[in-house]
Every structure is written in C-alpha cells, then in structure tokens.
C-alpha cells in the first residue's frame, strides 16, 4: 500500500475547529461542509481567540482549524501568530476577506496550510481545501515519524534567499530541542554553531559539482555524547551563482559501535589465533588446509608454505586406529573434544596431542576448525611423576617393611638375651657357660644390627625428633667412659677423656642423642683398636649470648681407614675390612651418627692414617639457657623417645633395686626388666629393712618399692633412705609398686613421704619402663 493509498483510505469523521465570531457565517460553513460528500466533519465553533486557545488547550488533536483572522479579541496576522505560537503543529486554513488576499498568502508563508477568501468559495472548494490540508498534514507527520525512527534528518538551504530549514530530527541528532531552536543561514556562519558543518558541506558539494558524503563523529550538545553520523549534501545551481542545497544527516552510532566491536573481536581472535601455542587450523573435510597459525607449522616441524601444499593434514595423524576414529567423527560431523592423537613429524618424532574440533561452512563447502594441543612434555612429566611416585612408594614400603621386620625381630631377640641371663643363673657346666656366653654375644650383635636398621629407617622416614634438656657435658663424658669400661678392659686398652675448662658446666640440647653419637664413635674406636689407647675430648669453639658451639674429638690408635674409604665412610652399609677380617656391624653406625649430627645443624669429618689410627671430629651448637616450659615437653616426649633409645642399646646398664616381699611379683618384675634391658643389674630385697642394708653398701639408679611389706614397709624404708642414708642413694628415685589404689587419690601424701612416683600392680610393663627411663634420665642431669 502506498502512502497515498493509505491516506485516501483514511475515511473517518474529521474534527474541525471553526474560529469565527460571525455566527451566521459559521452556520453557513457548517451547512456547506454538511452538504459535501468529500469530507465528513464534526465542527466545533469558537468565536474568540481566547476561547479557541482554551479549547485547544483542552483538546489539542483537531484535524484542522478554520481560522478567521478578524476576531473580537485579535485582529489580522497576529491572530495566526498567536495560534501557531501556542500550537506550532496545528493544521490551519485561514479565512480572509476579499480585501485581505495578500494577508492570506502571507499567512501560508508563516505556517498556515492554505487560505480561503470569504464569499469566493463554494461547498466543494471548502471541502477540497479542508481535505487536502488534512491529508498533507498527516503525510508530514508520517514523514517526521519515519525520520525519527530512521534517525535521519533532512535540511535545505538557499543562501542567497537567506533560506534554511532543518527537520526536527536534525536538531534531535545534535541534542537540541526541536522547534525551540531554529537556526538560520546567519547562524550557520558562526564556526561555533553546530550547523556550521552544513556550510562546509555546501562548499564542498558546490566545488565537486556533485553530491558529497562524509562520515564523522559529532558531539551532542545536551550530554556531550559522541555520535557517529553520515552526512550527504547535493548542490543544484538555480541561476548565476545562486545554489540550492539539499542534505541529510543520519545517526549511525549503534551500527558503527557494533561494527567497531566486531572489528575488535576479530582482532582479538586473530591475535589468539596467531599467538596461540596450540596449533589451530581450518581445513576442508579431506584435510586440505584453508588457514593455519604458525604453531601448526611448528608442531608439524614443517614450513607453513610447504604445509599448504600438502594434500591433507590428516597424513600426519597417528596411530592408524585413532586416525580412523577421528576421520569417522569428521565424516559424521560430530565434534570431538580432547581427542587423543599423535602427530608423526617428518623428523620421526611423535608428539602426543589432544585434538578438539568444530564445524563451519564456506562458499567452497563444509570445513572444520581444529585446535591441537601438544601434551608431549606434560605426558612425559606425568610418566616421570608416576615413576617417581611408584619408586617413592616402593622405597617407603621397603622402609616400613624393614622397620616392621626389625621391630618384630627385636622383641624375640630381647627375649633370647633375657632368657640367657636367667639361664646363666642355673647350674651349668663350664662348656655350657661358654656356649651361653657365645650365644649372648651373637645375640647382642644381632640386636645391635636390628637397632641400627631401625634407627636408619627412622631417619630416612623423618621420624627423628630432638629434645632440649639441661645436662652436663662432663657428667655425660664420665658416664660414657663407665659404659665402655668393660669393653676397654677386655681389650686391655686405655680409654681417656678431657673436657676443656671453658666448656660450660651445663648446656641445653638432646643429651641422649649426643650420648648415642659419642657412644657410637668411641665404641667404634675401641672396636677397631687392638693396642694403645682411645681418647675423646670436648672443646669450646665459639660462644655468644645464647649458644655455645662445642667440638668433639674421638681419637684412636687403631687400624685406621684407607684414604679411598674416608670419602665413603659415612655412607650407609660401608664396612671396614682388614686382611680378610670383617668387623661386626651393619655398616650403618657412622651413617646414623652423621645424620643425627647434621639433623641438629652440626657437621662431622674424619682423618686417618692407615695402621696408625683415626680421628673423628664433630661440631654441635647447644643453647646456654632453656625455657622452663621446655622441660615439661622434654619430659613428656622423652619417655617416648627413651623407649627406643634404651631398647636399641642392649649395653645400657641400669642398676635397679626391687623391694618386694611377694615372690611371684619378684620373679615377674625381674624377668620383665631383664627382658627390656638385658644387661640390667638387678637386686631384690624382701622388705624395707633389707633394702636399706643393700643401699648402705651399694649405689643404685632406682628403687622399685612395694608399700606393704613385713618387717619394714615401703613408706618407712623410704623415710630412712631420704633422711638417714648418705651419698648418692639418699636422692635415689623411688618408684612405688603398689596395689594400693588409694595412691591415685592421695598422690601428694606419698610424694611427701619421699616417693617420686608409682606404678599400680598388676603393672603394665611399658608404663614401668617409661617411668624408670624418665627418672634415671632426670637423675643423670641433676647429679
């Protein structure tokens, strides 16, 4: 349907405002229009300008206004001006007298749609004029609406006649309120005026003698928003140098922004495409390349140009089974994601890849896009990691098995040694004594080996902890000499030691570990020395406000170590051979020593002259002061640790006095203690009195005291020990072994009596061992 058709078919009753003060003339107009079949009108008559404006205020949508310019409250041209001023878009047809034709023409120029001269029109003229005016107005309104929707405005200009007109949309595009602002040719001359650019367009189109088009960004005046507009202008020569210019302006901002966003997006994707480490290509379904990035060529190890000359990129895919599956996916147009394929390169290298595809279409047919990720390094790393994990797991299991087996072996070994001690007390022939001695010696060696393996395993599994407790290096040295005395005597060696005067009387550190290290080194020295002496010393290296570093030296006159062995002496399972003789041991001792020293931040080294002897040096730093709270921690954790320390050292010689009248308890306690410490020295007293007699003659490390006994009970005996004995035994730790459950409730009462602690009968062996260890360990520090 054309616009014209749409207007013609517009056949409803038109509302017409008749502004006429002459009521008879107004009636005449009504009659004339009523007779017409051109237009169907409903007429409202108002007789003054004021009434008319009031009516329009209330009902602004009149299709047309028939306006007499001579009204009682307004005359002449000003009537029209008032009316248009209040309602600029009104469709007005001016009615004039015969003498006012010029005024009618003037009115049309000022904005009226038409004019009719009273007395010179009949019913048909009136109806035609009214209908044309209405249809033209409706057409203009549609045009304006179309401009608004299309965001396109038009303008025209005849500079020589000072004529310039711009549609409302032109003003809107510039962010100006239409109809409130009306620029003129004069305004355009001002370079600050937004319409000045039309002047430039006029000039350019005039010079080009053709229409000109421009795309520019302008700034709206209402909100400073940048808008992208297309300008077109044509110049038509009228006569001489006079021109008529016709132009349009269209706001393309939304389209332009979408276009820019698309370009940006394309640029981004292009960057991803070209810079991606993944190979990305587009090919037809036969594998003929249409596009690819540099990474594709790099992955295939081939020049990009050469790649495009290949029949199919599929020729690089491997193995055949995977390739076939991939091609089946392609033929079925099913996309794949992270599909595993290998790329067989020209240089015979195989790369493990993950392939993902999507499908597209070009004018030449179906295509697919492909991303290939090279995961060769990742896969190799993963394989390495798995291999390493398996190796670590295997090593861990091996360590655990070794630790488990060693632990399981240690228990029966302790039992064997304990039983041998019991057996020794029975009546035996000389041969039997010799055999037992031999079994015991071998058992002790075997137990030592097991303990070494356990300790090495603990170190390897990071299960070693170090405590901090106050101890005297001098007492430690004295005890060490005592511990090794019998071995030294057996070999008729001389064992001496020296502690430098400037070594502090007390230091803080792990006494038991230090004892273990020194016992091992000095014990080794004794083991490998057949003649001469073994000497160990402690010297101060450095000291500051909080710590002191000590140097420990162990020197022997033994067989020495060959230079090539010196380098590996601290490695596990290193053993010394001499003229076909193999020395007993696992070869783990020095490795354990080194680890224990290094784990405490120290270092160890050795010098040796084969046949002359060896010297081992190690350094450790100790704190000069401890924290009281540490003691508690040490004490509680010590009991755990000491279990392993003493269990691992069958040579440890505790001197224990059991005071117990109950025979069965005597036997069980003795056996249990010997089970734990095969070399323990144990004496039994049947009552408190006998215990005191023994303690007056001999020093012990600890007393296990029954409370209720005949002759003299445990409390009385303890009182005498604490008050009447002299020397070391006065402060000996006394551990009550009692069935008195009340001890639990009144612990302090017994402590006040001089008893250090208690074990309830029937006792749990582990509890007993821990308490013995604890009190003996504590005593060695405080002595």
């Amino acid at each position: 349907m054309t616009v014209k058709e749409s207007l013609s078919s517009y056949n409803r009753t038109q509302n017409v405002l008749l502004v006429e003060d002459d009521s008879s003339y107004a009636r005449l107009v009504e009659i004339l229009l009523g007779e017409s079949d051109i237009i169907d009108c409903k007429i409202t008559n108002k007789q003054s300008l004021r009434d008319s404006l009031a009516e329009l205020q209330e009902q602004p949508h009149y299709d047309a206004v028939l306006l007499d310019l001579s009204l009682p409250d307004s005359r002449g041209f000003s009537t029209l001006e008032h009316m248009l001023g209040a309602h600029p878009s009104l469709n007005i047809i001016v009615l004039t007298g015969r003498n006012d034709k010029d005024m009618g023409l003037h009115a049309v120029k000022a904005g009226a749609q038409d004019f009719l001269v009273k007395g010179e029109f009949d019913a048909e003229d009136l109806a035609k004029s009214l209908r044309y005016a209405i249809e033209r107005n409706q057409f203009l309104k549609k045009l304006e609406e179309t401009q608004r929707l299309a965001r396109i405005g038009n303008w025209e200009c005849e500079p020589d006649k000072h004529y310039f007109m711009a549609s409302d949309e032109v003003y809107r595009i510039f962010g100006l309120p239409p109809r409130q602002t009306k620029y003129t040719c004069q305004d355009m001359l001002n370079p600050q005026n937004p319409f000045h650019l039309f002047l430039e367009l006029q000039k350019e189109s005039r010079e080009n003698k053709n229409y000109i088009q421009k795309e520019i960004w302008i700034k709206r005046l209402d909100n400073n928003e940048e808008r992208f507009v297309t300008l077109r202008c044509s110049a038509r020569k009228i006569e001489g140098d006079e021109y008529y210019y016709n132009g349009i302006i269209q706001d393309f901002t939304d389209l332009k922004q979408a276009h820019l966003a698309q370009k940006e997006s394309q640029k981004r994707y292009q960057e991803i495409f070209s810079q991606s480490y993944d190979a990305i290509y587009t090919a037809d379904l036969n594998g003929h390349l249409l596009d690819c990035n540099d990474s594709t060529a790099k992955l295939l190890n081939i020049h990009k140009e050469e790649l495009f000359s290949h029949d199919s990129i599929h020729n690089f895919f491997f193995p055949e089974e995977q390739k076939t599956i991939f091609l089946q996916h392609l033929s079925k147009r099913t996309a794949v994601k992270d599909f595993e394929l290998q790329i067989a390169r020209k240089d015979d290298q195989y790369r493990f890849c993950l392939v993902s595809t999507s499908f597209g279409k070009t004018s030449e047919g179906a295509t697919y896009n492909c991303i290939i990720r090279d995961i060769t390094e990742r896969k190799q790393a993963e394989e390495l990691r798995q291999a390493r994990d398996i190796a670590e797991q295997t090593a861990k299991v091996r360590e655990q098995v070794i630790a488990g087996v060693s632990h399981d072996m240690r228990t029966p070994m302790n039992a064997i040694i304990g039983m041998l001690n019991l057996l020794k007390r029975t009546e035996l022939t000389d041969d039997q004594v010799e055999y037992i001695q031999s079994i015991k010696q071998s058992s002790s060696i075997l137990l030592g080996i097991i303990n070494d393996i356990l300790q090495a395993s603990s170190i390897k599994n990071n299960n070693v902890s170090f405590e901090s407790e106050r101890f005297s290096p001098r007492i430690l040295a004295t005890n060490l000499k005592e511990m090794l005395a019998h071995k030294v005597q057996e070999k008729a060696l001389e064992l001496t030691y020296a502690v430098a005067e400037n070594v502090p009387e007390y230091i803080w550190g792990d006494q038991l570990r230090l004892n273990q290290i020194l016992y091992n080194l000095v014990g080794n020295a004794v083991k490998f020395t057949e003649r001469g002496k073994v000497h160990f010393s402690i010297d101060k290296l450095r000291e500051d406000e909080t710590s002191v570093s000590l140097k420990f030296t162990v020197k022997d006159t033994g067989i020495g170590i060959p230079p090539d062995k010196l380098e590996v002496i601290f490695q596990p399972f290193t053993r010394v051979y001499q003229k076909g003789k193999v020395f007993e041991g696992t070869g783990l001792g020095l490795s354990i020593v080194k680890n224990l020293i290094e784990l405490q931040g120290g270092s160890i080294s050795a010098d040796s002259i084969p046949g002359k002897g060896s010297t081992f040096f190690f350094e450790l730093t100790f704190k000069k002061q401890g924290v009281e709270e540490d003691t508690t921690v040490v004490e509680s954790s010590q009991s755990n640790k000491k279990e392993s320390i003493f269990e691992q050292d069958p040579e440890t010689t505790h001197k224990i006095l059991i005071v117990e009248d109950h025979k069965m308890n005597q036997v069980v306690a003795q056996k249990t203690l010997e089970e734990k410490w095969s070399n323990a020295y144990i004496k039994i007293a049947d009552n408190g009195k006998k215990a005191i007699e023994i303690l007056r003659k001999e020093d012990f490390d600890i007393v296990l005291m029954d409370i209720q006994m005949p002759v003299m009970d445990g409390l009385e005996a303890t009182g005498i020990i604490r008050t009447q004995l002299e020397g070391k035994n006065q402060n000996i730790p006394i551990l009550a072994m009692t069935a008195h459950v009340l001890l639990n409730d009144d612990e302090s009462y017994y402590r006040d009596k001089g008893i250090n602690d208690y074990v309830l009968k029937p006792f749990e062996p582990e509890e007993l061992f821990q308490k013995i260890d604890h009190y003996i360990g504590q005593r060695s520090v405080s002595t």
Partner: protein
Amino acid sequence: MSRYHHINLNYLENMSHGDDSMKKTLLEMLLTELESEIPKMKSLIEEADWKTLRETSHRMKTTLPYVGNQQMLNANLEIENRAKQLRQLEQVPQFQNQLESLYPKVLEELRAEYAKLG
C-alpha cells in the same frame, strides 16, 4: 576361644614373655599361694583377725590378676575394704564364701594348664 571358664591367663602369659618355663614357674607359685591363702582367709575371719585378713587380702590383690577371674578379684576387694575400714564386717563371710565357691574350679583349671606344660 579359651577352653577355660573360670580363669583367663592373658596377663600371666604376657608377663611370661612367651617363655613356657617362666609360665610354669608362675603357675606353680600361683597354685601354692591360692592353696595356702584362701583357706587361711576363712580362719582369719572366724578369728576376727581383721588386720591379718587385710594384709592377706592385699597380697591376693596382686596375685589374683594372674588368675584372671573377675568375680574373685571383686570379692577379694570387698573383703580388703571392709577389713581396712572395719565397717560392714558382717558382710565379709559372704564374700569369703564367693571366693571359696570359685576357688576349686579355678584351681582345677590352673592345674590343667600346668599339667599341659609337662
């Protein structure tokens, strides 16, 4: 599962450290002690010698765990507490009866175990 109904030798076996001769020694001592002490407790009650009864009962307290009979342990504890506190002494005979009624069965099973060791 143990074939004994009145004894549980777990503690005794633990303290023997898997040594049968030790186990045998302990069983021997156990039998000797029970055979002498339980009848002795009866005569002490009859003589109202509460002090000695308390000492005997206290000794039994460390002996009975090797037997592993909870009823005997409990009865012995009741006797020791009453003898010590000298209260509710009229109830002591009833606990002694409990001990005496269990004692032959316990002895029988201990002897069986002892015989097994050869």
